[in-house]
């Protein structure tokens, strides 16, 4: 591996640097999330016309699909951070991986619940054992496994390393979630949104969906930054920079 990677990572990965960096960026991320979220909701719930087949039930798409994408995206981020944490033992990477897990689990849970709520009127059942639904459930279990393993250890860094290991093993599930609709015949629909070609969805429905997608991405960044900052304080409790913060933020 090129030697500049660890060097570069160590520089940005220094806890006080990242603490400050995340602190300045976080409010902006939150503001962007709110902005895009409000626009997307207005466009999705009010402006977009009812679907000719599904009526208004399809409006669940504006939260279901962004959440589903986030559930996979966050797993990818977690997996990468986990890899860095294991190979270079960088504290920040451990923290990013471990703090991504609860957010990812939250989005996975939302996907499952909103999908169920959508499935009842569309397919006539809350749940079937089809490939995409199952692999998404497995994704939730993976997230929970990572969180559980992390907390099962008494030493946090040791727990982080063990859980990072599990996260890396579990990453094979992400392509399965995505491609399950192609590989097996399922109830769940295949890709309707295509970034690089014509999407089979009308523009009035597409742009609110894209807004919501951006909103969830920004939300993730904001939430992750807040969590990482807290964790860094807890992990670096003995260091001077933390002492200063603890004294100033009384």
């Amino acid at each position, binding site marked *: 591996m090129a030697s500049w990677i660890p060097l570069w990572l160590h520089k940005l990965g220094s806890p006080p640097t990242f603490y400050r960096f995340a602190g300045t960026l976080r409010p902006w991320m939150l503001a962007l999330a709110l902005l895009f979220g409000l626009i997307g909701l207005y466009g999705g719930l*009010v402006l977009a016309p009812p679907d000719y087949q599904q009526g208004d*039930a399809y409006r669940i798409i504006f939260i279901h699909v962004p959440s589903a994408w986030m559930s996979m995206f966050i797993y990818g981020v977690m997996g990468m951070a986990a890899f860095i944490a294991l190979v270079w033992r960088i504290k920040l990477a451990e923290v990013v991986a471990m703090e991504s897990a609860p*957010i990812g689990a*939250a989005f996975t849970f939302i996907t499952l619940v*909103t999908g169920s*709520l959508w499935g009842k009127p569309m397919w006539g059942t809350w749940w079937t054992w089809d490939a995409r639904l199952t692999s998404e459930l497995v994704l939730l279990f993976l997230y929970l496994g990572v969180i559980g393993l992390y907390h099962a250890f008494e030493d946090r860094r040791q727990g982080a390393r063990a859980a990072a290991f599990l996260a890396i093993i579990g990453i094979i599930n992400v392509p399965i979630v995505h491609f399950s609709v192609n590989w097996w015949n399922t109830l769940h629909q295949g890709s309707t949104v295509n970034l690089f070609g014509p999407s089979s969805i009308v523009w009035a429905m597409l742009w609110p969906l894209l807004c919501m997608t951006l909103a969830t991405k920004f939300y993730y960044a904001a939430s992750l930054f807040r969590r990482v900052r*807290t964790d860094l304080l*807890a992990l670096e*409790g003995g260091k001077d920079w933390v002492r200063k913060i*603890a004294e100033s933020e009384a």
Partner: protein
Amino acid sequence: MSSLQTFLAMGGYAAYVWPAYAVFFAVLIADSVAPRLRRRRVLRELRARLVRQSTRQNQARQSREPAHPTSSPP
């Protein structure tokens, strides 16, 4: 029916659409509140630790002072 009522009725799918949105917001709000509480707790613990450390240092200095008067700061 007023337009608000039509909006809320969601074409007869209100029982599915609104709970979905409710879950979305409930989960995300929970996700953002949890770290806020944790941060408060972490800071409280940190300050307690600082207090413990400073008292221990004071004790150590007091017990050391007669033996090494030069090592204490002016």
